[in-house]
């Protein structure tokens, strides 16, 4: 059998031919748009991963009894504080409104000003 190998000194014409060869690549249609879409998708990915990360964190922390009690206590305290605060605001407003009503019932000039 004749060997399929060529000697290195005989490659010179091939090398010259390769040097002359110029490739004109053409981009696929909507190449640029697709690149931007891929960039956008890459940017969005970390935000989407926030919830699974939080869920993993909750899974890791909440089943621990001390942390679960702490979490419930904090939320309970927040509820108590917010409820008391809202009730206080409501009561103060009503107190002011009833005081004004009392004054209006006795003072014709206040009633007249407020009725205008």
């Amino acid at each position: 059998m004749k060997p399929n190998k060529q000697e290195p000194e005989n490659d010179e014409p091939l090398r010259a031919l390769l040097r002359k060869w110029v490739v004109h690549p053409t981009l696929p249609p909507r190449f640029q748009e697709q690149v931007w879409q891929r960039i956008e998708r890459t940017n969005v990915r970390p935000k989407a991963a926030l919830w699974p990360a939080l869920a993993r964190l909750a899974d890791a922390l909440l089943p621990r009894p001390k942390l679960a009690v702490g979490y419930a206590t904090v939320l309970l305290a927040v509820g108590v504080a917010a409820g008391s605060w809202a009730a206080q605001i409501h009561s103060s407003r009503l107190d002011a409104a009833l005081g004004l009503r009392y004054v209006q019932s006795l003072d014709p000039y206040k009633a007249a000003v407020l009725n205008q």
Partner: protein
Amino acid sequence: MKKSAIILLLGLLACTAAFAGFYYFGTAGCRGLMREPQPELAWLKKEFHLNDAEFARISQLHQAYLPQCRERCRLIQRQDEKLHQLIAQAKTVTPEIQMLLAERAKMRADCEAEMLKHFLAVSRTMPPEEGRRYLDWVENQTSLRGQAMEQRHRTAEEHHM
């Protein structure tokens, strides 16, 4: 996952229940006041710590004062309407307008005197400390203080500074 979701949910439920409970019990007094036949008098009783006897006496004074007050309101309104008509027709201050202005001023003075008499009678019915606090409060809240005029002057002074 399921266990932590249940704990999360229970925490939120506890928070909501605490909020609702404290709001409900914190506003119970207000709801009670609004259910009274005269909430403004019920408020007076609460605000100035009146006992039942004092409250009954003050309610009587209040009821006795209201018809006179309504009558004065009617007269004030009539005078205002008449003055409005006269001003609409006049080019100068006529003797009739001048007389009406004097009547209005007298009406205001009479009205303030009657109000003050009522407030003093009410304050005498209260415990002394509460009575003084009541007088201070009504003086600040009613037209006895002449607030509108004072505020106008104060604003003008600030403007000139």
